[in-house]
């Protein structure tokens, strides 16, 4: 390959990457632009990227009409708790499943995959009844339990991959050097698993942060509703929407996920690569 063709290939790669980036960022930027447009611009036949007469009225109206901060707080509690608990439970389970490749472990992995195929509607009524008996309807702890259970299979599946990517020889070397089982896990395995744990926690967080149906069904009182449920209050019958305030509220709703992602992005990249290749 000549240097010219190499250059052309590289330029093509960058172009493709740029196109993909635009594709990914477009909805977010459009949401941002929409949230600052007055109602008359929202109904324009020739919409513009930059609002001609930008306004904060949509944000004011969104906050006036709905308890967005309270709902965001509820979502944050539910999503953070679900992420932490899911990771705490899934990590040791994943370690066992990855290191002891027994028939039971294989069956458990298969079950994990199958469980992802269950539709929400199938599980929601039995789940509702179970939570009712536990007196956990209309409570954030009840919702967190559901989110943990819902995130656990996939979290487990992700973490098994990360554990397998940690060479078992490192643990054996630590054992030879005299480290006990617990010491080996804490000092050798856990640091290497940290990126994977971060990625898994982020997955659980975002899943819970965006989840709508369980929150809609399980939380009865307005004080406990989460952000995705409150966002639907801007939508009327037959899909008619109060577009400006909805865009403003939806834009704010995306920010926490972005912040969390930005904070642990480096760790996640490392984690994903670690899980991608088996030793």
């Amino acid at each position, binding site marked *: 390959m000549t240097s010219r063709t190499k250059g052309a290939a590289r330029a093509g790669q960058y172009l493709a990457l740029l196109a993909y980036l635009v594709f990914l960022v477009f909805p977010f930027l459009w949401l941002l632009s929409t949230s600052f447009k007055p109602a008359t611009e929202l109904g324009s036949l020739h919409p513009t990227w930059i609002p001609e007469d930008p306004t904060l009225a949509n944000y004011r109206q969104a906050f006036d009409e709905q308890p967005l901060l309270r709902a965001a707080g509820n979502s944050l509690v539910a999503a953070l708790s679900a992420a932490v608990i899911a990771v705490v439970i899934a990590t040791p389970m994943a370690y066992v499943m990855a290191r002891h490749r027994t028939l039971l472990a294989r069956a458990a992995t298969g079950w994990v995959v199958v469980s992802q195929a269950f539709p929400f509607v199938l599980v929601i009524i039995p789940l509702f009844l179970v939570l*009712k008996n536990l*007196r*956990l309807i209309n*409570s954030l702890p009840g919702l967190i339990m559901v989110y943990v259970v819902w995130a656990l299979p996939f979290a487990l599946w992700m973490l098994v991959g990360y554990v397998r990517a940690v060479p078992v020889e490192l643990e054996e070397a630590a054992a030879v050097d005299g480290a006990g089982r617990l010491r080996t896990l804490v000092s050798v395995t856990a640091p290497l698993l940290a990126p994977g744990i971060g990625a898994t926690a982020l997955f659980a967080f975002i899943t819970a942060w965006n989840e709508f149906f369980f929150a809609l069904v399980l939380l009865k009182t307005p004080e406990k509703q989460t952000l995705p449920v409150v966002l639907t209050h801007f939508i009327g019958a037959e899909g008619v929407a109060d577009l400006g305030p909805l865009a403003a509220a939806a834009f704010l709703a995306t920010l926490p996920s972005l912040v969390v992602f930005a904070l642990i992005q480096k760790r996640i990249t490392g984690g994903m690569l670690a899980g991608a290749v088996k030793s």
Partner: protein
Amino acid sequence: MRRARALGAAAAALVLLLAGCSGDGGDSGGRITLRFQSLAWQQESVEANKQLVAEWNARHPDVQVEYVQGSWTSVHDQLLTSFEGGEAPDVIHDASDDLADFAYGGYLADLGKLLPRRLRDDIPRASWDTTTFGGKVYGVPFLQEPRVLIANAARLKESGVRIPTLDEPWSWQEFRSVTRRLGSGKGRFGVAWPLKEPVSATLNLSLSAGGELFHRRPDGKAEIRFEDADAVVPRTVHDQVNVDGSASGATLGMGGSDTLPGFFGGKYAMVPLGFSYRQQIVQQAPKGFDWQVLPAPAGADGLAQGVSPQTLSVAEDSPHKKEAAAFIDFFLRPANMVRLARGDWMLPTGKEALKDPALHTDKHDWATGTALARHLRPAPAQSVRGYPEWSDKVATPALQEYYSGAIGLDELRKRLVEDGNLVLRRYQR
């Protein structure tokens, strides 16, 4: 051993913590608390709802109402789950076309004897028919809206077409010729039909031509027949799009709001929309945009059209049905019904409320819509079991294909009737 004990203690603490955190409403100290789930979503409407709840609470210290905001987006699934789990709200806001399944499932209370005579007499028989199944009343219909033509008034005047009135509306044939005159064929159309969900619009408007599609046999079972009257509206839309080019084919897959930018931009001279869309038009129309509300075209049965009113129901599991019915009675007193109707830009069902001068003003063409109220009838088939499946699986794709020109009228008839009756038969065994 110590570790096992510690784990056990931790588990017990977790269970206690979780149980302690769960909150539940109910009665406390002799005071009754009713949960009222409202689907109001527009700012003025939510305010009206909350004010009425506050007024009730101030007057009834022993029966307090807790306002819970629901959402139209998933109300059916959410209610179904709540009913199954015995946790449904006491007072339920929904639409009449969503009630049949819940009524037949035994989830809703029969309000027949719970409601006062004042309320029963105030709402016309035709409206009660939308919530009556098997002789029992499962909801109080309180808000409704006709489908109207919202028109670019300036363009109509320029074209010199006859402006329809309530006394002399356009016939479907005249409507077609008017849209031909209004559409220049250069990206400007006489009408935009937002038919993303084509079934209810088609069936409801077909009543004007005498089309009912669903018929009751002597044995009480429903069957579908597609007669000449049923073809009037579908054929008009089809020909406007595919023969005359006077209706935009692009809007067939759109919702009502999606057509507004084109309407404001002069692309479409008219859009058939629900009466409540006026609020969006008032909010979004460019300054100086001149619009007006026209009655939908009339057929052999005049201005008749079908509606599915918004309703208030009481859960069968509610231990306080009498109190819930009393709250509904208060909530729907004529003056209150007017407040709710204005908040939602819709029409009240109540005869007294309809007389309110605020609903007869020319501003935003309230008077035109209010005058249409007496022509409204129950939407066809909303009490027929199997209708939702027929609508989703048979009628929606068939009508979409017909309107886009992919199939002809004979094929449409065959699918609606033959495939449709197979669906109904499964539900009526």
